[in-house]
């Protein structure tokens, strides 16, 4: 296709118990998704502080996705419920500031959903790529 195809940088925070295992399963099943997706392991999706998300954008990420256990399946019983509320509020705030809502996402991926993980990442990467570079939450000092 194009010579200089734009590659978005995507940070995926995955909870250790479900989504990280789901990502492993995607690997086991050799389900491809873009290499632009880089996973950071956290014990639970509720460990993800809004500061981490903004930090990722500051440092050049184009999209941030948080993956956790399905509601009701949290290893810690309620962590992902908190994630759900916090991120709903935070994403709505980012949108309020005019930052593209497609750059952030929360997705529940169980340890059995390797296919869902890969599909989610493919879809997310595609949506973010369509948006182009993150300009609205960038820190020019961090650009190469």
């Amino acid at each position: 296709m194009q010579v200089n195809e734009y590659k978005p940088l995507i940070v995926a925070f995955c909870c250790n118990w479900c989504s990280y295992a789901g990502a492993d399963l995607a690997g086991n099943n050799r389900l491809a998704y873009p290499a632009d997706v880089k996973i950071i392991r956290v014990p639970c999706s509720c460990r993800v502080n809004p500061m981490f998300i903004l930090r990722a954008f500051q440092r050049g990420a184009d999209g941030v996705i948080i993956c956790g256990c399905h509601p009701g399946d949290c290893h810690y019983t309620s962590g992902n419920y908190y994630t759900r509320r916090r991120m709903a509020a935070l994403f709505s705030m980012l949108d309020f500031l005019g930052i593209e809502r497609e750059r952030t996402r929360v997705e529940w991926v169980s340890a059995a959903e390797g296919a869902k993980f890969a599909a989610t990442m493919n879809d997310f990467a595609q949506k973010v790529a369509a948006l182009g570079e993150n300009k609205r939450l960038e820190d020019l000092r961090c650009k190469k």
Partner: protein
Amino acid sequence: MQRVGVFVCWCGSNIAGTVDVQAVSEALKNEPGVVFSTNYQYMCSQAGQDMIKNAVKEHRLTGIVVCSCSPRMHEATFRKTAAAAGINPYMVEIANIREQCSWVHKDMLTGTEKAIILGKAAVAKVNLNTPLIPGESPVTKRALVIGGGIAGIQTALDIADAGFPVDIVEKQPTIGGKMAQLDKTFPTLDCAACILTPKMVDVAQNENIRIFSYSEVTEVKGFVGNFDVTIKKKARFVNEDICTGCGACVEKCPMKKVPNEFNLGMDNRHAIYIPFAQAVPKVATIDPNACNMLKNGKCGLCARVCAAGAIDYKQKDQFIEEKYGAIVVATGFNPISMEKFDEYAYSQSKDVITSLEFERLTNAAGPSAGKLIRPSDGKHPHTIVFVQCVGSRCESCAEKGKEYCSKICCMYTAKHAMLTRDKYPDTEVYVFYIDVRTPGKNFDEFYRRAVEEYGVKYVKGMVGKIVPEGDKLKVQASDLIANRQLHIDADLVVLAAAIEPDKSARPLATMLTASMDTNDFFTEAHPKLRPVESPTAGVFLSGACQGPKDIPETVSQAGAAAAKVIGLLAKDKLMGNPCVAQSDELMCNGCSTCANVCPYGAISYEDKEFRMPDRTTKIRRVAAVNPAVCQGCGACTVACPSGAMDLKGFANSQIMAEVDAICK
């Protein structure tokens, strides 16, 4: 900053096939802190592990990064390797370049590039790792079981059999719970008393078990392995130790018109009473609301007839403090109140009864000595209507009913209908249902027998209204399959009332800092994998307090809870997960936000005196995390606005370093 060694694994060709491992180990050499970087065919092999151990010695490594398969695979392996090499096992980080890199990317260039970035993130993190040491806490080898129904009894017996002392706290004067009130049990139809009372006797005779009947838990402090519990032993005005349970006092008691709660008020008992013949402990109890002597000091008959001299009108509530290593909640259930269900005329007619009342009516030890009669006139009922799902699966009537399925009603209604038809073939028995749910072993066969062998008339549809008219109950219902309205003149209507957790559960959950769902059922630590544990470490769940269940399920869960308790009590010390939350008290505001989100109740507060830099002192409320209870989810770290709360092993700084490394 650490002295980091990087070890890139080929995993045969699993990694090396799509990732240039040589390039990865070369690239990571220049990362801050890295003093050694290499690659090898199988890092997890003995030779690979030896390579790590040697490098630790040779290069005085303080941190290790292994770029290999998923940490879920070999993190434990490499941690052991680190420990064997003399460095803290938590100074190891894994970069997952197999499952999340070589296996999902086809192109060598992209794979290598990504592997390097993942490696950089791991190096950035390990540079900020600190050695972690799991905390240890001793275990008090005694268990507390709250609730003396079949769940509590079975759990206590199993724990006691393993050799650990157990205390049962039961709020009623006797143990036995709901099962003691039942007549027969499905699907085998053996008599409840026949299988329950021997167990009650076992409990009474077991040297490892103490029963605190007529008692309640009033305070719980401490944490897994070390609970301090206060038990209130309510005054029963009878010295338990000397009462022989002969019953002479009961016979002589002039106050005979007290509604008998054991028979659900369908007959009366005395002011001094023993709930039922096989009660354990078989000890009399004086009802202070009914006893003349206690109310106005006039009577004292029972004291006079008691040969043992066990009556003690001056007895006071007693508070007992005991230490426990584990607590099992077995607070059980109750049928919900039918008062609000006007459409079924429960309050208007004595002949509209609940299923539990029906149990008592058919029980040989019940108010009618087992003879099925209409409570209003004692006559034999000919047409009996059973209504299922009264208050269950009730989405639209949340204010009076429950949204969930009470699970046991289908089976006991089938049992009641079958038994009625069996004993009184002259009766006509209708059962109205939404669905018949009979998934247990031999359950569906049982239900089919009721329909096919015993001719119980099952009607899919709900009863709309019941109107008492003369000595009949006019039942208006719909038959959804035939699609018509039914009008039945019934003699007796039995309502399968929804069940709900016992009212004592909510305050208990607060004391235990155990979480509950919106219906006040206790929440499991994990709905599938840890179904008998509460999220609060050291608190276990047995029976219907966790959700509606029948006897076999209750007993198996009771055994499972016991096994978990035994597993806990068998340990001398508890090793904690060192990746727990930690509060920096200098920054803590004491706002309690973190405690609000902690699923484990691991956070407590204390007023602490601080020396301020200007040499004054200030007393501030600060959070303290109990590392023995914290499971390390990190919910508190985000809830904390000041950032005082951080998670060891997944610290803010570490995760941000990973973000930075990935994004640069």
